[in-house]
């Protein structure tokens, strides 16, 4: 029984714009670290944003935990989103807020408007935030402002924020593109280890094929909105990669 199944997904950004996704189907199983690779502009970011409907899909279906995502009304959509953690390429932290408040903001989907007005999170949330920050190695930076941290540290805050949601699925949008190779590996290992501990499947955009081979078990390759490859990461051949990246002209 897959956690997430996507069927024939089509999407475009504006009603007159070009079709970005031209019918994508795949399934994510319970223990997957699922990679989406492909050249820039292939539709990787659009695909991942359709899953939690930051981008509205035009056609097709997305099944998550037995429910249809594309039909959800706003209130249920927020409930869905709080079950899906997201980690971003540029970390997407609120720079003028403390590390602690950034991590706690991962709980906003569970927090009422009145409580969030005074940043009055339950003690259990605060305790969990401290534990997570300790776990990702930021014990000494809890009360610093987010923009005082280095890139690698900021992405660790991003990881803690996503895990704060107690997600059933993690979406990773190029989580290492803004980091150097050594820190990229550290961050990927941390995400893999914590996802295993918490038993959360991962769907991950990544353009570094080497990293995808190293950390992921399944791979799909996108090219210009079409799925060009699907298989186990270990089965992926050089010829497959050449087919996926064949159209990269720009």
């Amino acid at each position, binding site marked *: 029984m897959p956690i997430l199944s996507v069927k024939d997904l089509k999407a475009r950004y504006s009603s007159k714009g070009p079709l970005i996704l031209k019918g994508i189907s795949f399934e994510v199983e319970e223990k997957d670290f699922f990679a989406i690779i492909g050249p820039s502009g292939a539709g990787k970011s659009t695909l991942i944003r359709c899953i939690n409907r930051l981008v509205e899909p035009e056609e097709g279906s997305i099944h998550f935990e037995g429910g249809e995502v594309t039909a959800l009304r706003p209130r249920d959509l*927020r409930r869905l989103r*709080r079950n899906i953690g997201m980690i971003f390429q540029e970390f*997407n932290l*609120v720079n*003028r807020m403390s590390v602690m408040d950034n991590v706690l*903001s991962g709980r*906003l989907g569970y927090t009422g408007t009145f409580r969030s007005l005074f940043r009055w999170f339950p003690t259990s949330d605060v305790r969990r935030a401290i534990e997570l920050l300790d776990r990702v190695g930021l014990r000494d930076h809890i009360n610093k402002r987010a923009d005082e941290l280095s890139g690698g540290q900021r992405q660790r805050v991003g990881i803690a924020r996503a895990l704060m949601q107690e997600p059933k699925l993690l979406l990773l949008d190029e989580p290492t593109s803004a980091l150097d190779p050594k820190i990229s590996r550290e961050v990927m290992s941390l995400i893999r280890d914590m996802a295993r501990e918490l038993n959360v499947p991962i769907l991950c955009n990544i353009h570094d094929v080497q990293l995808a081979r190293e950390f992921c078990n399944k791979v799909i390759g996108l090219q210009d909105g079409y799925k060009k490859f699907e298989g186990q990461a270990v089965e992926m051949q050089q010829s497959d990669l050449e087919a996926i990246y064949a159209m990269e002209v720009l």
Partner: protein
Amino acid sequence: MTDSSTANPAFLQEAIRKRRSNQLIKFLLALAVFFLVLWSIDATVIADTDWERIGGLGAILKSLARFAELDFSLIPHLIQPTIETFMMACIGTLLGCLFSLPVAWFGAFNVTPNRVIFYPLGRMLMTLSRSVHEIVWALIFVAAVGLGALPGILAIAMRSVGFISKITAEAIENIDPKPVEAIRAVGGNQFQVMYYGILPQILPVVLGTIIFEWDINIRRSAIMGLVGAGGLGLTFFRQMAMFNYGGVTMVILAILVLVIFGEIVSHYVRKAVT
């Protein structure tokens, strides 16, 4: 020189002729402006002034000297209006901030609830607030709620909305959308997206603007009394009506002290928040 010129002679002549006629037009225009200025001085100053009443230069200086005879007995009566003026500025600015919240929300293109109705409405309110002078606002509110500090506060609040909400709306339009996306992705509602994703980003600009506006509002509240809306302006008006020119000077000094105080506070607080 003529040998090295590559332009054909007819073209050269034409260019020179054009330049001359342009210069002539400019000269005629300057002449017209000169006579227009002369005419307006004659019409407004020379013909419209009661020269006999002014008398000579000595008489002018004598009139001005009346303002120099400071009336220190007025000091105890200045304390309360000074405080009232200051309070009017503070409360008016606060109220203006409150009014600015929805106006900025409506008038920021990226967050407006509706781009066809609310966006133009927000922009219109911004313009309305600034295009009506504070004295005119005060007159309207004196007519509506009577004399006293309240109409002054309302007038200052209405006049403040335009600037505060315009700067706030522009700050909202210039935010980094990435944190907003993150708050939407964790399942935050509309309020949470604004409060956690947008507000921290615009706060320094908005606070700086509010303090700047407060500084200006101290000046504004000092003249509110001229139309019966309380504060130092009212004292000024009374001293003027009693021809107590020394007292008028005292009021002006009180306003000066208050304004300087406001500027000093504004300078340091703005530095601290931005």
